[in-house]
C-alpha cells in the first residue's frame, strides 16, 4: 500500500470492511472501559470527594488516572480492572456505591458485548 499524501487533492478510495477487524474491536472496548472508569471516578468524586475517589482508583492494579482530567489508562483486562475499581468504592458504602457506578456506566454498556461487561455492572 502506498502512503497517503494528505496534501494531494485527488479523491481517495477507501474500502470499508464489512466487519471490524479484531484489533479494532478490542481497541473500541478498551476505549469504552477507560470511559467507564473516568465516569465512575467522576461520579464517585461527587459523593466521596475527588481526592478520595482518585486515591482509590490509583490503587487499582492496572489502572492509571490523570488527577486533573480524570483520563484513565488501563493495562490488562478492562473488565477486571473496572470490577476492582468498583470493589474499592464498595468498601465505603456497600451496594449503594455499586449502584452509583452502574448509573455512571449505564450509557456505555450498550456498546459492550454481555460477556465483556464487568460483572459488577450487570443488573
Amino acid at each position, binding site marked *: 500500500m502506498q502512503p497517503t499524501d494528505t496534501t494531494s487533492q485527488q479523491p481517495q478510495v477507501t474500502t470499508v470492511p464489512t466487519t471490524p477487524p*479484531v484489533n479494532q474491536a*478490542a481497541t473500541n472496548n478498551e476505549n469504552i472501559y477507560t470511559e467507564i472508569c473516568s465516569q465512575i471516578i467522576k461520579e464517585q*468524586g*461527587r*459523593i*466521596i*470527594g*475527588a*481526592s*478520595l475517589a482518585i*486515591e*482509590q*482508583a*490509583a*490503587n*487499582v*492494579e*492496572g*489502572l*492509571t*488516572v490523570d488527577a486533573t482530567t480524570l483520563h484513565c*489508562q488501563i*493495562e*490488562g*483486562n478492562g*473488565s*477486571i480492572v473496572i*470490577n*476492582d475499581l468498583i470493589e474499592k468504592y*464498595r*468498601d*465505603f*458504602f*456497600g*451496594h*449503594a*456505591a455499586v*449502584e*452509583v457506578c452502574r*448509573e455512571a456506566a449505564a450509557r456505555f454498556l450498550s456498546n459492550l458485548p454481555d*460477556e*465483556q*461487561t*464487568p*460483572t*459488577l455492572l450487570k443488573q
Partner: protein
Amino acid sequence: MNKKLKLYIILTVSVGMLLWWAVLFFTTTREQQVNYWWQVAMGVSALLFSCIGIITAAKWSWLKSGVGRSIFFISLGLMMWGLGQLGWSYYLFAQPGTEAVPSHIPDYIYFSALPLWFIGILTLSRATGARYGIKKTSGKLAVILIAAVMSFLSYYILVDVARGGASYFTNQAVLDTFFDLGYSIGDAILLTIVIAVYALSWKRLGGRFKRPVVTILTGFIFLFLADFSYSYTNGKGIYYNGNIADLFFFLMVATFGLGVAMLDPDHIRKLKKVTAIPANDVTSSPISTSSLHENVVAPYAHPHDNTPTKDQD
C-alpha cells in the same frame, strides 16, 4: 487530628457527661449550680464535637462532596444547637428560678439547627443509595406510608401527649407558638426523613461507613425523644435541669459526634499505604499482556467474572 484521637475525646467526654448525669439523676439533685453546670458542659460538648465534625468534613473535600457536605451541615447544626444551649445556660445563671427563658435568642439559635440538619440528612441520603430505592414503586409507597404514619404519630406524641392538645398553642404568645410548633413540625419532618432514608437504603447501605451513618441517623431519633420528653415534662411542670429529657439531648449530641468522627476516612488511607501498588508503577514499568495474565489478572478476577481475556480471544 487523627480518627483515634477524635473518638477518644468524644468517648471520654461522653462517658464523663453520662456519669455526671447519672449522679444528678439518681441523687435527685435539682435546681443546684451543679445542674446548671451540667447544662453548660452539654453545650460545650456540642461545640467541641461539632468542631471535630467540621475538621472531618475537610477529609471528604469539604462541600465538594456529598459526604463532606453532609458532615459539614450536620456538624454546623450541632454547633448552632450547642450555642443555643449555652444561651439557655446563661439565663440559668443570670436569672435563676425563672420559669421560662426571658429571651427568644437561644430559640432562634436552636431553631437554626433544624434546616441545617435537614440539608445534612438529604445529602447523606445520596451516599446511602436512598434515591435508588425511591425509584421503585415499593420505595415510593414506603415513603408515602412512612410520611402518613409519622405525621399521625408525631401529632399524637408531640401535640396530644406532650402538650395536651392543639389548644395549648392558642393560649400562648405568638413567638412561643411559633417555636413550639416549629420544633414539633421540624422534629417530625426530620424523623420522617431519617426513617425514610433508612428504609430506602437498608438493602443497599453497607461497607465501612454503614455504622457511622446508622449512628448519625440514631442521633435524630434521640433528638425526637429529647424534644418530646422536654415538652412533656415541661408541660406537666415536672422538668428540671438534668432530667430524662436532658439525657436524650446529650445522647443526641454524643451520637452525632461519634457518627461524624467515625466517618473519618483515615483508616482506609492508612490501609492503602500498606497494600497499595502506586499507579505510577504501571506506567513506569509496563507489564506485558502475558505477564499480566499470569501474575495479576488471576488473583484479581472476580469469582463470577467469566469475561474472556485477550489471550482467550
